[in-house]
């Protein structure tokens, strides 16, 4: 079924994109593993140890630190992807998601790609294992695959005929999350995070602001997600 979703060109570029994504991860994982071995033989000299430590850190930063699934959010009914959490308090996170939109009342189903930047400044430790982040906020860019959608209007139109892109949506969101840290010290995942986001996009926002008729839930959406945190050595 997936084969009939898109014209060949879009399908090829999608495949290329996905394979690049996975090869980056695999390379980074292999590198991280190799430096693990080297660090054993080099550990006699302190400078060598530091150097390998840095390299190891660099390689590790390419490996995603979490996997996630999300429901709704204007990027698909369901979407899944990987995330990179960083910063001293892990307050920054960059996620890459691929979403699936069923066909509903249209001719074909759609796939979307999302790049999301999240900032989570505060942390409240509720319990030894449970922490609560009262605010998560950020921006995500979403692009819909398929020739119906364009970044820039086709050349047939007079200049600036439609001043927006049907393909690229800019979304903003605020939300909260709860994290649960697993008791085990050796499991592959070290924790699980549940989050919700209230979000809107450029086009919804411009409609909502302009019209009193539209209510909050007309142009603000709700998304739910689960993030699985990978254990770091």
């Amino acid at each position, binding site marked *: 079924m997936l084969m009939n979703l898109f014209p060949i060109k879009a399908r090829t570029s999608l495949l290329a994109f996905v394979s690049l994504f996975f090869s980056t991860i695999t390379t980074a994982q292999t590198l991280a593993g190799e430096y693990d071995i080297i660090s054993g033989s080099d550990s006699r000299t302190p400078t060598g140890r530091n150097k390998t430590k840095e390299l190891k850190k660099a390689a590790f930063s390419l490996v995603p630190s979490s996997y996630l699934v999300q*429901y*709704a*959010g*204007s*990027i*698909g*009914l369901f979407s899944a992807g990987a995330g990179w959490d960083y910063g001293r308090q892990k307050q920054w996170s960059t996620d890459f998601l691929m*979403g699936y*939109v*069923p*066909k*509903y*009342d*249209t*001719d074909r189903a*759609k796939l*979307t790609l999302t790049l999301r930047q999240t900032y989570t400044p505060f942390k409240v430790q*509720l*319990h030894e294992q*449970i922490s609560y982040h009262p605010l998560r906020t950020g921006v995500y860019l979403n692009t*819909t695959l398929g020739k*119906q*959608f364009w970044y820039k209007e086709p050349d*047939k*139109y*007079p200049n600036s*005929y*439609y001043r*927006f892109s*049907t393909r690229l*949506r800019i979304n903003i969101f605020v939300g909260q999350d*709860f994290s649960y840290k697993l008791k085990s010290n050796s499991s592959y995942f070290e924790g699980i995070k*549940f989050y*919700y986001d209230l*979000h809107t*996009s450029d*086009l*919804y926002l*411009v*409609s909502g602001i*302009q*019209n*009193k*008729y*539209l209510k909050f*839930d*007309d*142009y*603000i*959406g*709700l*998304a*739910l997600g689960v993030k699985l945190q990978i254990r770091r050595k």
Partner: protein
Amino acid sequence: MKKNCTYIALFFVLFLIQGCDMFDVHPYSGKIDGRQHINTENIAKIEHDYADRDTIRYAFISDSQRWHDELDDFVKIVNLRNDIDFIIHGGDLSDFGLTKEFLWQRDILDKLKQPYVALLGNHDCLANGEEIFQQVFGSPNYSFIAGKTKFLCLNTNALESDYSTPVPDFSFIEHERQTDKERFEQSVVIMHARPMSDQFNNNVASVFQYSIKQYPNLLYCNNGHDHIYQKDDIFKDGIIYYGTPNIGKRQFLIFTITKDHYAHELVSY
């Protein structure tokens, strides 16, 4: 602590239930909840209710994209009157082709006491908008008969199409001329973008004019798209094109059609 967790879980469940219709799958999801095929239903009502009428009076509005407040006020104004038989929307219900935009506008127009029909505008064609329009309202080309007048509603947004779809569709125009011949004596042509506008296929503008003039007693044409009031004899042949302002200007046209005669009025609110 366990109690706290239960509360948190409960909060989440409540939030979920509360937010059920707040889940947005995608701006172009094509997920249509509620009423569909509105034109077909309303045309049946118009043809049935006004079959024996000598005088027909309708309101013509257009270009209500992103003017939900103004459209809502229009509905209130028209519902206060009892002399309007039906309402024609000249197209551009959506600005960006978003699925939700069509549904927002449909929900406003559904509050009208009288039946209404909508035409396809160029903005309604954006992304997968035309698919949504067809599902919610109906075909881009259609016609109906009110009293003894045939209303021919045409898709004229040629710039949004390619050559695989004929816009305007001359075979449809010709076919409709022959259909139900005995039921109508005069004709009115309604479109979103009029000849000579940026959307129209101007290479065939005069051919278009010739083909609609073959209709029995063509009274005049209606168009939207230009967002201003227009009254122009474009082809200098006595057929007037009446353009209605966008609903954002809080203006619309009212047409009264009697046998061989018509009158129009620009209403501000």
